[in-house]
């Protein structure tokens, strides 16, 4: 930049691009509208996964984390979230409370709302098999993964006064097969929901 005029032109373009991404709610690196922890919905209760380091180190029912070559923090997300068909946070917030213009460009240029068709658990089984080089017809392929985890539910009145001493603990098991992903709670096994209607999530 050899003149102030060219520097100002550059700055105008620079801020148009970086701050334009904020208006358009772009969150694709290296641009962001800085949503990070911004998405929050008040509910009647707070349900969180209660981890268990030893269990996580043992890994999925058949394969250990270090066998897969996945860093611990990423493996936690695979075990706690993807196995239970929960996507990354950006999928939950990307299309939440969008104004019409931004919804239009997202659905035209990026694709459908990721919240409406969730196949995170299925993708996990595909990734594990492909990591070991097992194709869809390979007889050595892994046909079932399981992840077991406790979930703690804190009722809102307790949370509001800071009483975290009496959550309801429920053991859930994610069962991922080629026929779909299932959730075992108590003594019952139910398919994990994949498809959602927009009305149900907004």
């Amino acid at each position, binding site marked *: 930049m050899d003149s102030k005029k060219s520097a100002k032109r550059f700055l105008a373009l620079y801020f148009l691009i970086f701050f334009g991404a904020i208006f358009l709610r772009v969150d*694709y*690196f290296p641009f962001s509208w800085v949503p990070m922890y*911004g998405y929050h919905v008040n509910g009647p209760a707070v349900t969180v996964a209660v981890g268990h380091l030893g269990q996580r180190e043992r890994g999925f029912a058949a394969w250990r984390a270090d066998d897969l070559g996945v860093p*611990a923090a*990423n493996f936690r997300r695979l075990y706690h979230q993807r196995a239970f068909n929960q996507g*990354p946070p950006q999928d939950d917030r990307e299309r939440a409370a969008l104004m019409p213009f931004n919804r239009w460009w997202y659905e035209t240029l990026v694709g459908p709302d990721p919240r409406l068709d969730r196949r995170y658990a299925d993708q996990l089984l595909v*990734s594990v098999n492909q990591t070991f080089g097992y194709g869809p017809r390979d007889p050595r392929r892994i046909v079932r993964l399981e992840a077991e985890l406790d979930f703690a539910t804190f009722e809102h009145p307790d949370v509001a006064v*800071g*009483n975290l001493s009496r959550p309801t603990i429920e053991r859930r098991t994610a069962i991922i097969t080629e026929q779909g992903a299932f959730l075992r709670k108590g003594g019952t096994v139910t398919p994990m929901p994949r498809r959602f209607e927009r009305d149900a999530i907004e």
Partner: protein
Amino acid sequence: MNSETISRRSLVDRFFFDWHDAAALGAVRFYFGLGLAIYLNIQFDQNLKIDAFGAHFHFTRPIWYFSLLGIDTNVPWISFAVMALLTIACLLFALGKWTKPAIIAIIIGIFYMKGVRDSFSGDVHHREIPIFALLILFLFSKCDRMFGIDARKKKLPPIEPWESSWPLRAMQIYIALFYFWALVAKLRLSGLDWFTGGGRIQHVLISRAVRDGFTPTGEVVNLSLGWELAQMPNLVWFFGAMVFLFELFFPLILLVRDWRLKLIALIGATVFHLANYFLMNVQFFFYPFVFVTFFNMNLFHEWLMGKLRLRRSVAAVAT
């Protein structure tokens, strides 16, 4: 052109071009580059915590540019090589040797390492976004013309103060507004629900504290401080209100010239990042190194060198 337009233009000129002296940009580059080497090692450390010659994990969700390039598998040893090159590039950038190529190498290295880290499970982190924006400004500025090896060896002519000032001011705007946009995003997505009662902060405190489980005696394994705080909703609400005020008013720092006032504001921001780390394990704790862009680091450097020279001469006299 009427007088009002002239006055408005001169205000823009004063804001961008009349703030720092000529040597400031090169000195900021030096300290920023050193900090960047540490920051990136912290950010991408997890890519290096797996067996370099172990399994090639097939990403569950490659980041968008990996998808475009057809990169769907992690080859672990590449991360080790890229991290070494990235660190070297940061040091070359800091020292002002092959500065512009080093910036391009850093950007490519960040894209690769971030791509790997975020593609395992598909969570896209935001910790490299401001870094990229600042590196673009270094790239298009004359940051290599002073305070560096090439500048000294090639006897490059010094730059004008305005050439040093505008990139630094643009960096400051980006950094300051990053906080402000984060507040706008909270309000766009969640409204005041984010702050109501314990709000989002209490929810994150609980989920982060229990994610590694409990000890046999009933204590959380990690983040016990966050667990304790989650049980004090009034205090959590107070911190939420502080976050609101901090993010709302932080851009005012752009109007402050006094380095002491800026230091106070930036210490506040640093406390914010450290608290997020110790309470919720949010990995922005070394991010405050970017605040060197707010100061005349040339004056700081001269002061630091003066102190070191004084210490050496005292030691020499004593011996």
